[in-house]
Structure formats: C-alpha cells, structure tokens
C-alpha cells in the first residue's frame, strides 16, 4: 500500500486536512473519513447522481473523482446547505411538494438543483429537467421534484410574487 498523503480543502466552509490514499475517491473521503454521509453511493459509476456534491459550486459525481483532485478547492455537501437545525428554503420546498420519498437520491438531487439555481435563478422547465439528468430517482417520477424547484425559484422572485406556503 502506498503511503497516505495529506490533502487540504474546504468542506462546507471549513478548512479540512485529511490523510488519504492517492487513489481514494472523494466520496470515500467524505463518507468514511469526514463522516459526511449525506452523499450516497448508488452505482459507483457516475450514473445515478446520489453521490453528487458541489465543487466550487458546480455539481460533480464524487464517486468519479479522486479526493486528491479536490486539493485547495471548496466542497459543499448536503450537510453544508443550511446551518445546523435549519433547512435551506430549497430543502423546505422539496419537503412541502412531496419531492422526497425514499430520500436516497434527495441530497444529490437538491445539490444539482442548487447549482442550477445559483447559475440561473429563474430556470425554465427545460432547464430544470436538463439539470437533473444525472440524478436518477425511482420513486417520484420527477414531477414533484421539478415543481419543488420551480416553486422555490418563484419564491425568490421578489416579495410581491412571494407564494405563501402552507
């Protein structure tokens, strides 16, 4: 076995130093070494999106990336989307629109949506669907997920149009 090397990156706003093998994947470092189990491993081949995290704000499949390649970069996992004990309004929208069933795809799905909305705060239906092609969901049929994202986008359009939530 090759010796572990130390890598440094920011995770959810905090600087992290981790010792890991050179060929260790980011998903392994996040889950096993940092205890951030919100990224799920569903396929190990970058096809299901359950392990999605944000790298400098962009979604990546953390099972398809070596941790060493995250050196010096900013990683956001689902755990870092809102302060402890709070939900980000996007998470709240997923909850309220029935966009969550088994919950296994949910962290990755929310992060893909977050990256889209950060780039494009008011996406079209097509934009939303296309942003999620790398996140499989077997439970919902996707409609409620897209609705949750749309509703969140609408709610950020300014107070006058703010939709009251039940």
């Amino acid at each position, binding site marked *: *076995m090759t010796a572990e090397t130390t890598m440094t990156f920011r995770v959810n706003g905090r600087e992290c130093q981790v010792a890991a093998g050179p*060929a260790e994947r980011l998903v392994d470092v996040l889950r096993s070494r940092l205890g951030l189990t919100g990224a799920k491993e569903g396929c190990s081949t970058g096809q299901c999106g359950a392990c999605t995290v944000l790298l400098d704000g962009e*979604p990546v499949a953390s099972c398809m990336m070596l941790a060493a390649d995250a050196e010096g970069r900013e990683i956001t996992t689902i755990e870092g989307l809102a302060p402890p004990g709070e939900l980000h309004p996007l998470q709240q929208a997923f909850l309220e629109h029935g966009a969550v069933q088994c919950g296994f795809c949910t962290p990755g799905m929310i992060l893909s949506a977050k990256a889209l909305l950060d780039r494009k705060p008011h996406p079209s239906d097509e934009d939303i669907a296309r942003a999620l092609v*790398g996140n499989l969901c077997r439970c919902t049929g996707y409609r409620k997920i897209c609705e949750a994202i749309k509703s969140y986008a609408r709610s950020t359009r300014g107070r006058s149009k703010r939709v009251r939530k039940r």
Partner: protein
Amino acid sequence: MAEPQMLQPSTVREAVRALAARGAVAMAGATDLIPAMRKGEIRPRILVNLKGIAGIRGVKRTRRGIWIGALTRVADLLDDPVIAQNLPLLAEVAAEFASPQIRNLATIGGNLCNAAPSADLALPLLVFDATAEVRGRSGKREIATSDFFRGVNRTALRRGEILTGLLVPRPRVRTGAAHLKLGVRKAMDLAFVGIAAAVQVSSDGKKCRRARVALGSVAPTPRRAAKAEAVLEGQVVTSQLIDEAAEAAVSAARPVSDLRASADYRREMTRVLTGRALREAFRRAPQERPR
C-alpha cells in the same frame, strides 16, 4: 490490488517523462478511468495526473484557428464565448454530453483519448477538420482527427505521448453544421448512432461547396463518411441529393450488433440521421455566417 503511485507533473515535459515508465497511465478527468480501475480492467502502477499541467487548458483564438486545450472540461465548452461564436456545434454536443456531474469533471482530451466508438466530442471535431496536437519525448507532432482514432479505445498516440490540444480551423463563411444522436433515453444514453454534418454553401446558397459528415457508434471508431461528402460537394443541393448522400454515408458504417442495437438498425439509422443532420446543416448554413 496495490494502490497505484500518483505523480502530479506540472509541465508537459514532466508528464511525458513520467508516462514513459512501465504501467504508467495518464489521467485527466478520470471519469472513464476510475470505473475501469475499480472493475480491474486497468491496473496502473503509476497514475500520471495531468490536471496540474499549466497551459493545456482553455480556449484561445490563434492565427491557425481555435485552440482548445486538452484539459478543457466538457462543461467549459458549453459557455465559452469563443466556442459559442465560432464552433456553436461543439457547445451543442457538449450540452448533451452525459450529465452536469460528469461534464464538470470530464475533459475533451480524455473523451478523445479514451476513444470510445461513441465518443461524442469527436464528431464536431471531425467535421471541422480539427487537428490533434500531441507532445512526446521526441517533441511535438500534429495528427488530423480523422487519423487519430485507431480502434476501440485505441488512438494514434505512442507510448509516452500526450494530447495537449485541438486546433480547429475557423469554419468558413456560409457554413452550417448540425449534430444528432439517437438513444433510447433523451439523456444519459450511449448513442446507437451519432451523426455530425457541416456544409458550406455557395454564395447564392444553392450549391454545396464543401461537406463533412462524421459518424459515431457505427464503427470501431468515430469516422468520416467520405463518400457522402463526395456526393454533395460541387452539386446543387436538392432533397434527392441529400437522400443520396445519406445513402452513401451507410457505406462508411461498420456497425456491430451489441446490447444497444443491431447492426442493421444502426446502418438504417445512419442513413436516416445523416439525412436529417444534413438538412439541418443546410438550413443553418446561411444564418451561421461567421463574422
């Protein structure tokens, strides 16, 4: 399985030297490499991580055309202003490439060097006569993209050579281009057939001055359909001519039957999609006059 040793060269020269070692494998976005390593299909002794190399990333305008660094991520092709202005087809293909999660990791060089029969990005490069810029121990050389692919997962790169960039001549005036791919799902599918076409029309818009047709997933490598191109060039464009070209494209297909589609279907779809891609390319031609 022993963990491979990881090398992080910061120059092309270092990378080339590192790759000369036995069991050394070049790594860029790693989206093809990681699953292959986990499956045990590739067991590198040394991983040469190219991502730290300066100067082979990004898109530039040069005197010879548009230069795209091999380490440019697929995602970067989507919203690069130079690509948008000069090679919008490449951006279109990039937008349909796998998923955002993969596009943010995978590089154009990696996609080409992996040399899958279905390599999406190869098709627009083939129709725009792009050249691969290669560096090895004996220096620099250039390989036409039409000579770059040598077989399934095989390229013209020699041991120790790396792809550093792609040079794409600026498309000529009155050129239109289109790309189509056919799968079962609308996304995340390895295509049964992929077709790109680029055509240049005469100033009155009636004749085809130059034509390029490239086929993906229907042969061991992405490849040009020279006969289809010959049918079109110098001729007055009619619906019948396009049908003839589409028919001619089939002769360049060497499809196999596999789990995704039968060879017969692939041949038939080569014809259908070539016809469609050509029609769309001609439709786009007059509007897409580069300034």
